[in-house]
């Protein structure tokens, strides 16, 4: 038999993204593109105040305005529950966190600028907008709690009057006494206070939702910009609206970026669902950009004091981190998990620090809710750790690279149990560091620095060695830690009679390229061209119950489910092929799309097996069901642990403080890589967001709780010309506990880059004796510091 043409679409190939053809031509199908017959439009009336009582709402003028169909307030939602929180954290004294009600629409009080108070539904968006301006809300303004330290002070007024304090939880992890003892006896302790700046997620596509109630069969359909439609169906169906799941279908079609902000269940989803039934027509809501700024859950916002204790040789003895983490005004879906189990557990980093203790207080303030944002907790952990390590290097005079090397967990130490509850399965931190140093010509730095100085520029070089945890799991352990959901993933592989394949996955692509990556796994396993594979996601009416995409879990968990389902297909295929070839299934091998019997020239193609499965004329019907469709639910045994070393080199203009990143290299260990091009793209995007956080982005509230950075005029998003040409390299230690040996790459860039950038800035400012500058490190801050310290 002639050798088959190589497909070049399997694992490890940089296949160009199949979805891009429709995205780049404007043929994507986003929620706002969906126009249902007799669709109506909802516009939210939002609080202009950060903290106020709502004394009354007069909707009469709005109701009388042209085209208005309904004006709804909290009274219209009294039959329903509040928005639930999906993760319950316990305080160190054993008490469950405080969980104040998060009403769909404000019930007598508003707690942040943007808090929804009423909704207007009209024939057109313009009419709804006009009427929204006519809704007359009688507020009594109160002085808001914006600053976290003020909010936790004993005398502080309460964001929620029915709670004992503004502290949502007072959580701890690690051995406090051992850590204290090690710090007390250490040769050197480095101490640092730092802010992890609040970020606005800014997905390119604003959130949108359409409620569509079908009076004929009593079924609700919700189209929504979600990263996890089943999670929304469960949370909204079961906890908010009490809709049985078989009467609620959630569709998340093409979604234009999420970065975490589209994980959560938002009020608008419940509002359009209820409103559609009420008025008997589809109701669409689409956020405008200003609305996104004050209603999408924000990210980060930590205030931390960290101490790192070392012996005389720079060996780390202990780490203690005390953090105030902003929850905002309400608990968003996964908010409590972010600064706790996704942050405190990462504080060992890549190091052998034997004693670690962390205390995290979640704090309510009159600001937009804060929840997971690209990296979710791990960027905060990596930032405080890699900043304090760098400062320790300065204080002890040990080279920052050398200090890290002295403390790395060694490649032969895996599996490695950290003092903060994780077991790292595998890694090689030396390898990525060596690679990053080599790729950025570490040895030539002094020469480049001198050349920069000759041009009036201060050159700095920073490194950061990160580790993170992806594919949060296993479900039973996450459950014990407070998760109120499972964390497995599901995949169905449906082979069609002619041999093409549909994969129904619970993962969700909102830009990541699943339709390519997942199809490559199928192409590789079944030996069929990628054109014959369709990846279906985002519709609870089609896919098996899945948990969606966040925490870089798609390939590590969803991909593993897919691999297992494919294994089942191959197993059944071998049985069918054995029957066709009159052999034993044990003797049938499957390779390159052919089932064959070793040592013979007998073989049968995958397509013939598929056809036989659906036209079972010659089929072992006594022992095997016809058809070729398999489902796998995969619950991971552990997190995966991507790690890596990032190097940033930058120049500072002395006259203006302007920072120019001149070189950036990311050396990552993502385990096995399915599509190197897509992985590189993920790293580029992550680094862009990390550089944005480090140098440009930051949500700023004034004392009245007004978001000063409420538009792109003031909130600085990184643009192409702000960013360096990021180069990447990879070292592979394959994950030991999932079938593809993969770890995930979606967040690493945003985790490793902020400390690399800030370390480089501090390095550049070495002559100014600067210990630390909080992010975003703007030109203005740098200039002010250079001048305050005597230029």
């Amino acid at each position: 038999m002639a050798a088959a043409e190589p497909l070049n679409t399997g694992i490890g190939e940089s296949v160009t993204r199949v979805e891009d053809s429709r995205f780049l031509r404007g043929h994507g199908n986003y929620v706002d593109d969906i126009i249902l017959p007799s669709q109506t439009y909802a516009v939210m009336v939002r609080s202009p105040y950060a903290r106020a009582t709502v004394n009354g709402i007069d909707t009469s003028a709005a109701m009388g305005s042209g085209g208005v169909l309904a004006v709804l307030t909290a009274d219209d939602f009294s039959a329903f529950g509040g928005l639930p929180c999906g993760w319950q954290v316990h305080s160190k004294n054993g008490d469950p966190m405080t969980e104040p009600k998060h009403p769909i629409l404000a019930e007598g009080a508003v707690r942040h600028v943007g808090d929804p108070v009423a909704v207007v539904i009209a024939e057109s968006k313009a009419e709804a907008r006009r009427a929204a301006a006519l809704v007359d809300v009688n507020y009594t303004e109160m002085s808001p709690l914006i600053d976290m330290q003020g909010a936790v002070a004993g005398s502080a007024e309460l964001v929620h009057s029915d709670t004992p304090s503004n502290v949502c939880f007072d959580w701890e992890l690690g051995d406090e006494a051992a850590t204290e003892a090690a710090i007390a006896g250490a040769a050197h302790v480095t101490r640092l206070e730092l802010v992890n700046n609040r970020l606005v997620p800014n997905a390119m596509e604003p959130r949108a939702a359409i409620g569509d109630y079908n009076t004929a069969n009593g079924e609700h359909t919700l189209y929504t910009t979600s990263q996890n439609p089943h999670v929304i169906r469960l949370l909204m169906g079961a906890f908010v609206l009490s809709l049985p799941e078989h009467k609620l279908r959630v569709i998340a079609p093409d979604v234009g970026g999420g970065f975490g902000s589209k994980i959560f269940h938002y009020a608008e989803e419940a509002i359009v669902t209820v409103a559609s039934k009420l008025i008997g027509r589809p109701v669409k809501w689409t956020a405008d950009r200003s609305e996104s700024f004050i209603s999408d859950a924000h990210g980060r916002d930590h205030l931390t004091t960290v101490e790192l204790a070392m012996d005389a040789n720079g060996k780390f003895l202990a780490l203690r981190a005390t953090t105030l983490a902003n929850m905002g005004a309400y608990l968003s879906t996964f908010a409590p998990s972010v600064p706790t189990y996704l942050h405190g557990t990462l504080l060992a980093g890549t190091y052998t620090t034997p004693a670690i203790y962390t205390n995290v207080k979640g704090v309510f303030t009159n600001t937009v809710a804060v929840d997971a944002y690209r990296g979710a907790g791990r960027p905060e952990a990596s930032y405080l750790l890699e900043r304090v390590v760098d400062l320790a290097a300065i204080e002890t005079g040990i080279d920052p690279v050398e200090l890290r090397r002295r403390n790395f967990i060694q490649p032969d130490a895996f599996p490695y149990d950290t003092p903060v509850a994780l077991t790292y399965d595998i890694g090689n931190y030396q390898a990525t560091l060596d690679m990053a140093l080599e790729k950025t010509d570490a040895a030539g730095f002094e020469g480049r620095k001198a050349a920069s100085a000759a041009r009036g520029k201060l050159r700095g070089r920073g490194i950061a060695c990160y580790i993170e945890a992806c594919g949060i799991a296993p479900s039973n352990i996450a459950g014990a830690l407070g998760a109120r959901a499972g964390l497995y993933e599901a995949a169905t592989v449906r082979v069609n009679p002619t041999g093409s394949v549909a994969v129904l996955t619970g993962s969700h692509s909102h830009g990541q390229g699943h339709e390519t990556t997942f199809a490559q796994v199928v192409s590789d396993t079944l030996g069929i061209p990628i054109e014959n594979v369709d990846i279906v996601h985002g519709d609870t009416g089609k896919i098996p119950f899945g948990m969606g995409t966040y925490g870089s879990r798609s390939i590590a968990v969803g991909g593993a489910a897919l691999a297992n389902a494919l294994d089942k297909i191959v197993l059944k295929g071998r049985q069918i092929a054995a029957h066709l070839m009159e052999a034993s299934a044990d003797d049938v091998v499957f390779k390159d799309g052919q089932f064959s019997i070793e040592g013979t020239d007998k073989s049968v193609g995958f397509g013939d097996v598929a056809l036989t499965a659906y036209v079972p004329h010659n089929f072992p019907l006594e022992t095997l069901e016809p058809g070729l469709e398999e489902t796998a639910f995969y619950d991971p045994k552990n997190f995966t642990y991507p790690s890596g070393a990032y190097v940033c080199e930058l120049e500072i203009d002395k006259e203006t403080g302007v920072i120019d990143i001149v070189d950036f290299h990311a050396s990552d260990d993502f385990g096995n890589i399915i599509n190197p091009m897509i992985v590189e793209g993920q790293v580029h995007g992550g680094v862009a967001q990390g550089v944005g956080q480090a140098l440009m982005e930051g949500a700023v509230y004034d004392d009245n709780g007004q978001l000063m950075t409420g538009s792109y005029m003031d909130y600085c998003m990184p643009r192409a010309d702000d960013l360096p040409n990021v180069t990447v390299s990879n070292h592979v230690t394959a994950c030991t506990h999932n079938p593809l040996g993969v770890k995930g790459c979606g967040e690493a860039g945003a985790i490793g880059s902020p400390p690399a950038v800030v370390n480089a800035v501090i390095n550049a400012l070495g002559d100014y004796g600067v210990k630390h500058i909080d992010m975003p490190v703007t030109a203005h801050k740098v200039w002010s510091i250079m001048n305050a310290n005597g230029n």
Partner: protein
Amino acid sequence: MEAFNYRKAGSADEAVSTLASAADGKFLAGGMTLLPTMKQMLATPDTLVDLGGASELVGISRDGDNLVIGAMTTHATVAGSAEVHSAIPALAALASGIGDPMVRNRGTIGGSIANADPAADYPAAVVGLNATVNTNKRSIAADEFFVDVFETALADDELVVSVSFPIPAKAAYQKFPNPASRYAVVGVMVAQTGDGVRVAVTGAGPSVFRASSFEDALGGNFSASALDGLSVSADNLNEDIHASAAYRANLVGVMAKRAVAAC
């Protein structure tokens, strides 16, 4: 946005008379500033008089030692004009640094100066090059035109027709963009004109202003080093989350030196 009447004028005269007949009308040029303001309900005119049909307001021409730019000429046209490049390259460079391609393709010089945003670029060119603003009623000298934040010498019913720029011996514009909006935190136009050296600063204060101490120093010695040790006072300069007054004052000096060096 409130509902409004839309009128498209076929000529400058028609624009003026249409505006006169409206209760609370406004001229619409590129709409890049006016429309967002209306969307935010910061302006609620009952009538917009679109200047887009008044062809005599568009174009670039040479009139003796002056370069005359019609009010409705877009930033992109100025940036790409061979005439501007040869006469006042600094002006073409300034226009090419305004906003993004969409803004440059819609936004106009007349709209920009009539709007008088303290962070806009064109005011530095108008004052730095000692231009004259020609309206349907009169000619206004650059130094008289910009009054305060978003305030000009224009009457409510006055239409900017064109701007005449005397061609300088040398000129250069340096801008320190706001990293978020890319408007000018500080922008400095330095020019050697028939009228002596002029240094106009935008972005730093409530309105464009001339740095007279810089002008004096450069008048004697037109080199960047002539500005060593000189600075503008930070008093009365703008202060916001992006830049303190002191930082702006520093940037005025730095941008002025760089502009001189670029001349």
